[in-house]
């Protein structure tokens, strides 16, 4: 008889989005990884099939929802599927990207079925590789990068005699361990106390929008509540657009050096940049909350087991105008460190507690901005392939659950990519331009004058 497990908090976050937004599309994650080299597709197929066997999360399936709408997960022992090959070598790279973008929009509907798809691709300009489309409940972006590297290692082992890659951690064991940790009553009580204490100390959070205070004012009118502190979530028009901005290597180095010299993490500096912008466009609002995603991968097993380990927690800080830039960064760091220590907690319970305490209306939120910082570069870390040009690309699933979701990653050239995913129902490219422009002005003014007061900084930029 197969062994079934409940969802982890991270998986449940995605599942709840699927239910709330009524489409599995919100849970899709897709990447293409290719090399400018002729590939042996017969061998690549064998390696992909082997990878599915090695990387257990690719064999994960979900049960049909029960009467409460809850689902469970289980692994199938073998998945001997065929891996199709799509020849797009006659297209332009942009046309091929369009085809793959459409694949990324597809939903993996139904239960008791495979939740990942892999296609080998022949791309234009001599690139060859594979495209992977998965449900986020199976994997997060870090997990996908590990998978791409492992698959390439398998290929170079069989093709060039490279060393066989080390075993990956057993997905099922790590899953069982996670669920056991989540059920530790003492740990749960400590985590709950931490989050409850924050609400005891600060009270109900206050919404702040990228477009300014008018958004909250509109929500107050709509709900006929002039004291409402949350704003509406867009549930129907989920179309997302993406705007990328590249920060050049030299200014990037400036940010990295500032972080290193002041023992700050980049995440906290970025959170400070976003919150200062939100404060600036919301009449100097001091109480700001941003949802920050963390990838709960610390141990070897957590790094190599696959699975969906990324989860978001609200980073709430109250920073006054007379706080100096560096002190504000440390304040955020202090809050984030506490959050990391309590990141086993299910963030759905934080929202539930707020609804209970403050009667937050359905379909409203306290946050407009979501941040993911990815220190892990997307490249094939394989000595046999280092001299070969690579084309890899993430494809958005086309349906946003969040008003604005910023992913910051590092480029192979030493710069940083600021990728803004935004709901087009509410935001425009101009809003993203303004956000990026002011974030950069705030960050670079701040790192050049760390003792500048936040109020002066907002006035100066």
């Amino acid at each position, binding site marked *: 008889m197969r062994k079934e497990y409940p969802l982890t908090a991270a998986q449940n976050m995605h599942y709840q989005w699927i239910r709330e937004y009524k489409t599995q599309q919100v849970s899709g994650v897709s990447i293409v990884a290719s090399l400018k080299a002729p590939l042996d597709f017969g061998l690549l197929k064998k390696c992909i099939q082997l990878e599915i066997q090695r990387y257990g999360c690719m064999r994960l399936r979900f049960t049909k929802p029960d009467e409460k709408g809850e689902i469970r997960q289980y692994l199938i022992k073998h998945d001997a599927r065929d891996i199709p090959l799509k020849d797009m070598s006659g297209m332009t790279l942009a046309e091929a990207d369009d085809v793959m973008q459409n694949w990324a929009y597809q939903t993996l509907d139904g239960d008791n079925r495979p939740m990942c798809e892999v296609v080998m691709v022949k791309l234009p300009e001599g690139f060859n590789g594979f495209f992977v489309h998965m449900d986020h409940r199976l994997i997060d972006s870090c997990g996908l990068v590990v998978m791409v590297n492992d698959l390439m290692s398998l290929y170079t082992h069989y093709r060039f005699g490279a060393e066989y890659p080390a075993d990956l951690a057993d997905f099922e064991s790590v899953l069982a361990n996670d669920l056991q*940790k989540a059920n530790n009553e003492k*740990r749960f009580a400590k985590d709950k106390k931490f989050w409850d204490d924050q609400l005891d100390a600060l009270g109900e959070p206050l919404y702040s929008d990228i477009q300014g205070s008018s958004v909250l004012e509109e929500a107050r009118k709509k709900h006929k509540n002039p004291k409402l502190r949350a704003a509406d979530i867009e549930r129907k028009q989920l179309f997302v657009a993406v705007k990328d901005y590249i920060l050049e290597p030299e200014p990037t180095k400036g940010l990295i050096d500032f972080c290193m010299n002041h023992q700050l993490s980049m995440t906290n500096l970025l959170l400070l940049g976003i919150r200062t912008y939100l404060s600036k466009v919301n009449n100097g609002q001091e109480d700001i909350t941003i949802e920050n995603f963390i990838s*709960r991968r*610390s141990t*070897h097993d957590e790094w190599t087991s696959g699975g969906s380990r990324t989860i978001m927690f609200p980073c709430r800080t109250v920073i006054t105008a007379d706080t100096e830039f560096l002190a504000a960064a440390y304040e955020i760091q202090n809050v984030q*460190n506490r959050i*990391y220590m*309590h*990141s086993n907690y299910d963030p759905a319970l934080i929202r539930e507690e707020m609804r209970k305490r403050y009667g937050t209306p359905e379909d409203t939120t306290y946050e407009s901005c979501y941040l993911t910082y990815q*220190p892990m570069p997307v490249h094939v870390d394989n000595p046999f392939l280092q001299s070969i040009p690579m084309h890899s690309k993430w494809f958005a699933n086309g349906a946003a659950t969040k008003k604005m979701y910023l992913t910051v990653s590092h480029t192979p050239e030493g710069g940083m990519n600021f990728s803004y995913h935004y709901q087009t129902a509410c935001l425009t490219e101009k809003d993203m331009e303004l956000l990026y422009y002011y974030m950069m002005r705030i960050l670079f003014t701040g790192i050049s004058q760390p003792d500048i007061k936040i109020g002066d900084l907002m006035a100066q930029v």
Partner: protein
Amino acid sequence: MNRAAEFKKIVAQYCSVTAEDMTEEMRFREDLGFSSLDFMSLLGELEDTFDVELEQENAVQVRTIGDALNMLEELAA
């Protein structure tokens, strides 16, 4: 297994240094490559494993394996 050995075994799960090769002078961030998330996750695991309550203000001052072991010994005393 004594407390120090058990502690090192846990730390080794987070880095590429084995418990046997771990010295008290080794620094979490610089020598063992811990990120803030790794370090705070480790603290949570130490609390659960050794059944102690860590004060975050004190815990974030910990720099080395030796510092952490001393902190654990004091809390367990």
